[in-house]
Structure formats: C-alpha cells, structure tokens
C-alpha cells in the first residue's frame, strides 16, 4: 500500500530537505523545533487494465448520461475535444491517456457509422500545439488519420468565423465557444485531471472559449474570490464556469465528459530522478551519491543544456481512474479521486511558507520558465494548492526557491516580454494592471496574429498569470525568492535573497524571529487540507 502524505516535524536529526530550484536543486537545513515539511502521498496504484477501465467507463456512464455508444449515430456531427500541452506535467510517457481514450471513442464512432468527426485541442488562449506535441497526445495513428484532412486542429479563440455566441449567464457573463463544437450533436471532452482545478464545466467553457468569454472569470475579482481555485466549491472561477455550463446545456450543447486521474509517479522508481520522490531520511548511500552526482553535474552545465535535459523528461505517471458521462456527476468523482492522491491533512497555518519551484509549469512545456511563470507557479498554482485555508497565515511570508532568470521564449511568450518590460516596470498591482493594460494587450493585432499562426500564447495570457497570483499577493505580507536573478525578482515586486537563511532573516522583519515554517515538498504534487 502506498503511504499517505504526512507532515514531518523538523528536529535536530532531520537531514537537509530537498528544494526544487528550476533546472536544479538545493538542499536546505530547516530550523529545528519550528519547522515542518509537508510530504506528498506515494503514488497510488495505477489501473491494471486502463483500456478495460476506459471501455467500462464509456459503457457505464455516470449521471443521467446514456452510454457513449448510444449517443452515436450515422450522420451526426461529433467533436472530440481534448486537453492541450499544459497537461499532464511533466508530459507522460507514451501512450498518453488522451490517445488511449480517443482511440476507443473513435472505435465506437466508427462502429456507429459516424463519419463527421473532428478533433480539437482545447487550448483556449494557450499556444497552439506542434505536430510533435499533437502526435504525442493523440498517437500517430489518430494523427495520421485526421490531421492531414484538417480534422485535427488547435482551437482558435480569435477566429471570428468559428466562434458561436450562445448567450449569457444570469450574471451577465457571455458564453462564446468554438462553433464546430457548439454545433456538433455531441462533444466528447477528454480530460487529464492532474489537479482538482481541472475538468468539469471548466473543460468546455474555458478550453473551447474565446477571450470575450474567458475575461468574465479570468480576472482579478474572480481569482481573489476563489479560496482556492483548487477547491471547486470555494472557487468563484468554477462557479462562473458552472454558470456557463448551464448556458451551454440550455443552448443544446451536449457534452459527454471523460475525466481521468493520474498518480503521483513523477520521477519513477528507477533511475537517478527517482531519488526526488523519496523522503530525505530514507535516502540510501546510493541515493545520496546519485543525488550529489546529479546536482553537481547539472550545476556545471549551461542553462540551455539543463533545460534540454529536464524538458525531455517524460514522467511514468499512470492513470488511476477514469469516469465518463454527465459533466457534473463525473467531476464529483474525479475530484474525489484527485484528492485521494493529493490531500494531506495539515493542522493550522504557518508564518512562513517555503517552496522549491521546479522547472515546469503548465505554460512552459518545451519552453522557458520565465519570471512571470515563476510568479504564477508559486503564487498561483502552488499557493492555491489548499483546501480550507491557505497553509500560511494572512500577512505571512512566502519564500520561493527558483533561479528566476530574465529569460523568455521569444516565440511562445512574446506578450510576456512586453508585459514584463512595460507593465511590471510601471506597477505590480493586479487591479491597476487589469484596468490600465489588459485591453491593449488582448486586442493587439500582432499578438493575435502570432497566437493564430505561430506558437505564441495569446496577448492577454501574461495578465492571467498575474491574476492567478492575485489572491496570494493580497494575502501575503512578503514574497522572497531565494537564488533568483536579483533584477528579475525585483521587477516582480518581490525580494531577492541569496540563501534560505538570508530569506528567513528577512522574513523575521515581518513575522518575528520565532516564526513557524512550513515547507511544501512539491513535486510530486500535494494539496494541503488545512484545518
């Protein structure tokens, strides 16, 4: 049986703790007597027969849905939408879950005589997926069968001819999604629910939406009222998506939702990376030697080489559950399954929260983790990985460890560069940023062109990254980044520190000298269930 996540109270015998640090690592000694470490659960067992489980789910749907085969008929228009390159993290080894599911859906469609099938990467305002990325996600067989005929496409949220306006929610939120999907007799949405935020109505209402629609929930107010957006029932982000889901349903859009969960097996049980998945006091002499060799080797490599090594890592994580059918019923069970892997009960809040940020986040797969993404990963995603209350108290300090280099992928993140240089040099206040700058970036013709024709995130995307962290910005008394590029860290509005000890000293100005410290040992992912 895999061991659950747990909380380690740090004492004098506790060895140095692993902090991820971008494309590298740090070992840090935490102060005894006032520190604790939150460890993730060990990987849950994978489904022994994933193909059989998928088959079963499609044939035994949840909620008021009929089996998928009963929803398919000759002459119908079928759209299969699937999560994009942002999921899972890191990318998984072949076969990708999406491939497994889509192949079975297509088999059923073929058996039912469905000819009009289109596959859409539901990327919202993310960058388009490359051919290699699409092949990895759906498999070569599906790619070859559909892509050459224009039947496997990236969603285009800026294509006015292929968007359908379906109405507004009772709170005035406009719902506009991919026209092909909206006009289909059935949308089959294939999810990979890496974290509890993923899935549900967010899949269709966000993944296939336009800026016109997304701006209603991707904004500062929504993010600040999502406590957290990883907890659906306390998330304004999800409430808005659920309201939009009702509009979709009322407009006759029929969705057959397929959600899958995966285990925490990010670094595997074999090979040098496996040490990252072990608890430090359980490291063998071989583990220590492996880690030391890996760290030393990485530290000597240029950043470009390190990035290539890490970005080529395909994780061995595997599917732990698959649910299909009516969106909300499916999502409830999916969320419970995600929680089974991620939730770690934590008692009370801390004064100082520390995190080692890894090399990857949803928006830099095969790319560069730029400073804005560092902010988003730390203050957006990791900070919000809680249920109940944030693990750090209001006014507390967040210490992140990451190189935070002043570096951007010029093809993937062109508007990020301008955001960093031109917006953050003026202000870091999310509300001011939203009010004064968002529209001009969102409507910038060049960003729009690059989003549609190249591989660029939409012009407004860096704003969303900033909003993602706005709850944390309002909650925290100070943010310190250890080992980051000083200029870049300051541009983010945070404080740079050379060492963790320096950072703790700086934090004491805010929370006092005997402040409690909690380190989140993520990845593998964990979610604090704070009482």
């Amino acid at each position, binding site marked *: 049986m895999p061991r659950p996540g747990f909380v380690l109270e740090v004492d004098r015998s506790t060895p140095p703790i692993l902090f991820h640090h971008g494309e590298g690592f740090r070992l840090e000694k935490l102060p005894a007597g006032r520190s604790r470490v939150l460890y993730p659960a060990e990987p849950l067992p994978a489904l022994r027969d994933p193909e059989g489980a998928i088959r079963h789910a499609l044939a035994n749907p949840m909620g008021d849905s009929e089996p998928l085969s009963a929803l398919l008929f000759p002459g119908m228009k079928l759209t299969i939408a699937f999560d994009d390159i942002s999921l899972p993290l890191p990318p998984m080894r072949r076969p990708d879950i999406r491939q497994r599911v889509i192949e079975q859906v297509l088999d059923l469609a073929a058996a039912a005589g469905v000819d009009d099938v289109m596959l859409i990467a539901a990327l919202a305002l993310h960058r388009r997926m490359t051919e290699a990325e699409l092949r990895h996600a759906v498999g070569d067989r599906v790619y070859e069968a559909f892509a050459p005929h224009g039947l496997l496409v990236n969603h285009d949220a800026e294509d006015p001819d292929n968007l359908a306006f379906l109405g507004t929610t009772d709170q005035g939120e406009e719902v506009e999604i991919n026209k092909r999907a909206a006009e289909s007799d059935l949308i089959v949405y294939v999810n990979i629910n890496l974290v509890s935020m993923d899935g549900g109505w967010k899949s269709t209402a966000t993944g296939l939406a336009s800026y016109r629609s997304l701006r209603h929930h991707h904004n500062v107010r929504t993010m600040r009222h999502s406590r957290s957006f990883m907890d659906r029932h306390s998330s304004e982000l999800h409430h808005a998506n659920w309201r939009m889901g009702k509009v979709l349903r009322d407009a006759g859009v029929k969705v057959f939702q397929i959600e899958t969960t995966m285990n925490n097996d990010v670094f595997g049980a074999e090979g040098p990376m496996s040490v990252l998945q072990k608890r430090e006091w359980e490291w063998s002499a071989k583990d220590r030697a492996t880690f030391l060799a890996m760290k030393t080797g990485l530290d000597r490599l240029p950043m470009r080489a390190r990035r290539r090594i890490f970005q080529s890592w395909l994780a061995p994580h595997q599917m732990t559950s698959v649910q299909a059918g009516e969106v909300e019923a499916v999502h409830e069970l999916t969320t419970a399954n995600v929680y089974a892997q991620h939730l770690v009960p934590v008692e009370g809040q801390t004064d100082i929260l520390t995190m080692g940020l890894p090399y990857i986040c949803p928006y830099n797969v095969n790319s560069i983790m730029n400073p804005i993404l560092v902010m988003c990963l730390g203050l957006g995603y990791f900070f919000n990985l809680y249920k109940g209350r944030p693990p750090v108290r209001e006014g507390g300090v967040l210490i992140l460890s990451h190189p935070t280099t002043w570096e951007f992928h*010029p*093809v993937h993140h*062109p508007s990020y*560069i*301008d955001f960093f*240089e*031109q917006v953050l040099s003026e202000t870091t206040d999310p509300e001011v940023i939203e009010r004064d700058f968002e529209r*001009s970036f969102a409507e*910038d*013709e*060049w960003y729009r*062109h*690059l989003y549609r024709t*190249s*591989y*660029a995130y939409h012009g407004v995307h860096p704003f969303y990254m900033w909003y993602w962290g706005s709850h944390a910005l309002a909650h925290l008394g100070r943010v310190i980044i250890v080992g980051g590029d000083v200029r870049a860290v300051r541009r983010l509005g945070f404080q740079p520190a050379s060492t963790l000890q320096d950072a703790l000293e700086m934090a004491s100005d805010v929370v006092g000298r005997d402040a409690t410290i909690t380190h989140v040992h993520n990845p593998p992912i964990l979610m604090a269930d704070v009482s």
Partner: protein
Amino acid sequence: MKALLFRRKPARYAAAVVAASVVPGSGARVGPLALEDVDPPELPGPDWVPIKPRLAGICGSDLSTIDGHSSRYFEPIVSFPFVPGHEVVADRAGPDDGAPDGSHRVVLEPVLGCVARGIDPPCGACARGDLGSCERISFGDIEPGLQTGFCCDTGGGWSTAMIAHRSQLHEVPAALSDEAAVMVEPTACAVHAALAAGVESGQTVVVLGSGTLGLLTLAALRRYTDPGTLAAVAKHPEQRRLARELGADVVLEPGEERRVVRRLTNSLAIGDGPITRLTGGADVVVDCVGTEAALADALALARPRGRILLVGMPGRVSVDLTGLWQRELQLVGAYAYGTETLADGTRRRTFDLAFELVEAADLGRLVSATYPLARYRAAIAHAAAAGSRGAVKIAFDLRNERERTR
C-alpha cells in the same frame, strides 16, 4: 595662463584610440591633451574681446576628440593646437566690457560664422541667421574652426582666458546661476534639433539616448513641439528618472526599443521570435547617441516615410540602408543652432529659446560635478562614464583658478 591644449600629435592620438577602446575617457591620460602654460590668445580684430571662463562643460564631441573617435571629416575645419571647450559661461574681462545693465557674465555662442570671421557680406546662411550652416567656417580673419574650442586663434573654455567676438556673447540674466548658464549652449543644440525634427501634433517620437543631449532634446521636444507620445531610451536609472521629469511619456531600456515602439504604434512585426523588423514604427526617431548601433536602431524604429534625426555626433558607421530606401525614410542631421522658425511663423534666435528652456526646466540641475583644470583626467573620465555614475553634465570650474586673477 593655464589651458588644456590639444595638439596635433599622431603617435599620442593613436595611443588615445587604443586606450579609449578599453576604457572610455582614457584618451586624456595618453593622448595629445595636456595642461600647459600658454600665452593668452591675441585679439584678431576690434570686435573681439577677452573673456574669462567661469564654467566650461565637457561635451560628447570633446570626448570623441580626446578619445580619438572623431571623424577625419573635421580635419580641414579645425586648426591646431586648440583649447577645447565650447560650452562656456564666462566673465567679460575687458575694462569697459560690462553690459548695459552692468552685468559681466556671458554665455558663448561658439559657432564661428561669417560675422566673427570678418567676412562681409556674409554667406547666405549667416545672412539668414543660420550660423550653424555657415559656408565660410575655414575662411576669413581667423584660422579654420567650426566653433570656438576647435580653433587655434580663439582659445577655448578649458582655460583661464580666451577671446570671443562680441556677436558670440549673450548676457546672462542675474537670476541665472552659472550652472544653468553653462547648459545654454547644449540646450540650444537640443532646441534646434527639436525644431528640426518636424514633429507634427500627435506624432510618436522616440529619442535614443538619455545623456546630456538626449535629456535636453527631450525637454526641448516637450516645450517646443506637441508629440502624441514621447518615448526615451535610457540606459541608467538616473537617466530614466530625469527623462521622465523632463517630459518623456514612456521610458525604456536599451534592447526594449523595437517591442515598445511596436506596441506604441500598433505596428506588426515581421516573423516570430525576437523582433527585428517592424511593419510600422515611430513617426520621428531622434538619435542622440551617434553610434552605428543607434543608427541601425533608428532605421528599424522609424515608420515608412518617417524621419530620423541625427543629433548625436556620428562618425564613420556601417549600416544597411536598404530599409531607408524601401521605406522612404528621411535621414536628417541636426547640428548647432542659429535662428528658428516657430510653429506660429515667428523667427527666434536659438539661444534665446535655449535661455528660456534652461530657466523653465531648471536645467542647471543637470550639472552633476565640476573639476578644476588640474584634475582634467578625472573630469574627463567622469564625463565619459557619466551615465553609469549617475551623472549628466561634467564641467570645469574655472572660478577659483589662481591664474584667473593674474
């Protein structure tokens, strides 16, 4: 008298070129500039008067000369040995040389045009009051020299005594400090540049470089033109602060120009990845740097049929002019000053406009440090690294020089 003298010494000049390529400003240590005891310059005619510099600024063109970066273009229009220093506030030194109001302080307008050279009738440019375009700068009663400070007959501001033609002198109002007064000459250059830029109301103007000339040009553009957006490229924090204070709407760092201009002008960029080519661009780009890279930037930033104004002194550069041809750009120089035509059609002396701007924008604050002549090497090193040292204008302070009172 004491003077910093620049002699024609090819070997030392070559040494300056080498030294300055490693550390800017180090041409003062090994080059042909030296502090010497020299005789005061003789008055070449009845309208010439002796003056005693109070403050004399160090200009970018002086630094280029000292570091051996100046183009050989200047050889026939300067005469050796000369005393540099053309940004000068001085005291009249003659016994009856006080102004009608009793004041003795003057600012030098250093261009040596036809009137100063005793050429009558003057050339067409001088007749129009466009002294900077004088066609006789190597003729007449004095040796060649486009300005005082580059002519062997007149002396220059980096000394305790020099001479000036009466037509070159502008009385300094009593309320104006010496520091403000020494900024009048470079401000006149900036005013002339701003008015030569041909900025139409509402246009986007980009100023490359925020050294002294860049900052003054910003201030002049803000006062004498009506741009829609005035953007300044500034490398150093103090420059960025001052650029904002002096009127820039947008201040950016080197390397950000193409992206910022693209956004300001709603332009597209050709290709993805790093931006190299814009489809549109700024209406006017004012280059206050004068380097090859800056000119290349200017060519990249100006919109089709836009205007590029060279204000910083360029030398020999190698740039691809295909874009200038294909985009029908105007490349215009802006040198010195004379008489300007304002938007309402009135004609004003550039120096009069410069006095007004210096006072209105409190430009005397840009004088960051002064040095005695004896510390000229430190002064020039400071001036060469002014931006990175948080400084703008460095000047020689001659007010306490012992020789001045002899």
